[in-house]
């Protein structure tokens, strides 16, 4: 197995773990963390393709990962802000109880 393939398989496994957490957990905070894991798996793919790609001097993979990390940080801040606002309204972070749109 070539190094690139092993990195891609690891990234696919991390993505699936994040997806399983986002789909199966009940707490809204953990669902957000699962989405972060999926973004991290994509970042690992970018870095692996940059490292084993034909033109690593262009720095495209590194740049894309840096921008992706910044967007993910902004997403985490806004997502946790939304969770706090919803908690203040509904008094719970349990996603199975947050099933009405009208409040």
């Amino acid at each position: 197995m070539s190094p690139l393939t092993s990195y891609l398989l690891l990234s696919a496994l991390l993505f699936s773990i994040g997806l399983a957490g986002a789909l199966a957990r009940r707490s809204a905070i953990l669902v957000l963390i699962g989405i972060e894991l999926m973004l991290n798996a994509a970042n690992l793919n970018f870095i692996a393709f940059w490292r084993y790609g034909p033109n690593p001097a262009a720095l495209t993979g590194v740049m894309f990962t840096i921008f992706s990390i910044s967007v993910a940080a902004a997403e985490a801040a806004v997502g946790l802000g939304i969770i706090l606002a919803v908690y203040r309204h509904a008094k719970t972070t349990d996603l199975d109880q947050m099933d009405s749109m009208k409040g």
Partner: protein
Amino acid sequence: MTVSFLILATLTIAGMAAAMGLRNLVHCVLALTLGFAGLAALYLQLGAQFVGFTQILVYVGAVAILAVFAIMMTQSAGGLTQQALSSSWVTGSIVAGAVFAVLAWAICSSAASPQILPSQPEVSVNQIGDALMHRFVLPLEIIGLLLTAALIGAVVLAMQEKREKP
């Protein structure tokens, strides 16, 4: 595939799986920092030093602390009174397993793997700063705008609403 890759991959997967599987939310975030640190070590191993240290600063430092704050402020730290899994967890796990199977099949059957391994690229922070200031200056400005908007948006969202007088 080297021994260090195997060790780091096992550490990362164990951390991430524990973060998604443990019952107590604070333990979940602690396991999550382990997984993020393993991922940062993988970036360092791949030769992307700047991204590795950014990963440690942003994820291990900021995002984990933010998640801990959210857990404390929503008082869901105990977590033992409520059920950990949602009502549709069987379907979710099946979907995730199917996604992994399809991805693994696609990766293993693809011809994208290079036969000749390129040498470790040398990337200095100097080069990254140069690229950010020349070729990627427009995305950098847009990211700055996005981060400002996210900062203000998060503060406004999390701020206590004022009760209107009847």
